[in-house]
């Protein structure tokens, strides 16, 4: 189960598990940002390819408007998913290991 906490218009906290069953919920939540988006992933334990797809699509949408997607505080396992897929080259990842 993915828990999404909205901090302000462009900042969220994701925690729990971001699997395929949570993709629609996350897509709706991230549908209409008005600037560079920051997602704190400190509490995120798991992300599958469907979760990555939501983030890539959000990135594309933001990039078209001149904004970016910043991901912070990824744990080691989640960080490695981004490393394996080289998506760490796409997103602005800010965490203690970077």
């Amino acid at each position: 189960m993915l828990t999404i906490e909205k901090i302000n218009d462009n900042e969220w906290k994701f925690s729990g598990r971001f699997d395929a069953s949570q993709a629609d919920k996350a897509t709706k939540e991230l549908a209409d940002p008005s600037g560079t988006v920051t997602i704190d992933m400190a509490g995120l334990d798991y992300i599958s390819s469907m979760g990555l797809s939501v983030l890539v699509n959000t990135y594309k949408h933001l990039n078209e408007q001149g904004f970016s997607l910043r991901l912070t505080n990824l744990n080691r396992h989640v960080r490695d998913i981004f490393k394996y897929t080289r998506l760490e080259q796409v997103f602005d990842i800010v965490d203690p290991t970077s």
Partner: protein
Amino acid sequence: MNSNMKFSRKTEELVNVFQFLKKKEIEFGCTDRQKMEIDLCVEEVFMNMVRHNSTAKNKIQISVNKTADNKIIISLIDHEDHPFDITKTDDLDLEDYVEKKKSGGLGIHLIKQMMDEISFEHQRGISKITMVKNI
């Protein structure tokens, strides 16, 4: 403990798939890292079966077993008229992928990264994908 279970062909069934896997992962003494990798690879194959065979009514069978030499053997079995052999898919061109910022095909790439062996069989309308993880 039962090593086989059948699951309905829908995304919402993932919660039950993960519950089943969790019991087996604890039984087999998997680390947190191994649990995450097994969950992820099973989700990717399960969702491929859900998406590529969406009109079928039968359930998808998942079995998880551990061998004496510490290999976790995971099989997903589905009835498929048009088999989709994930082992035959081209390796993802990650340079191209990152350049174009695509968002599909990552699941199979992740399975190839995380599992030690992957195999596919198709006989008389039944597809079986087997993944092996050394622990």
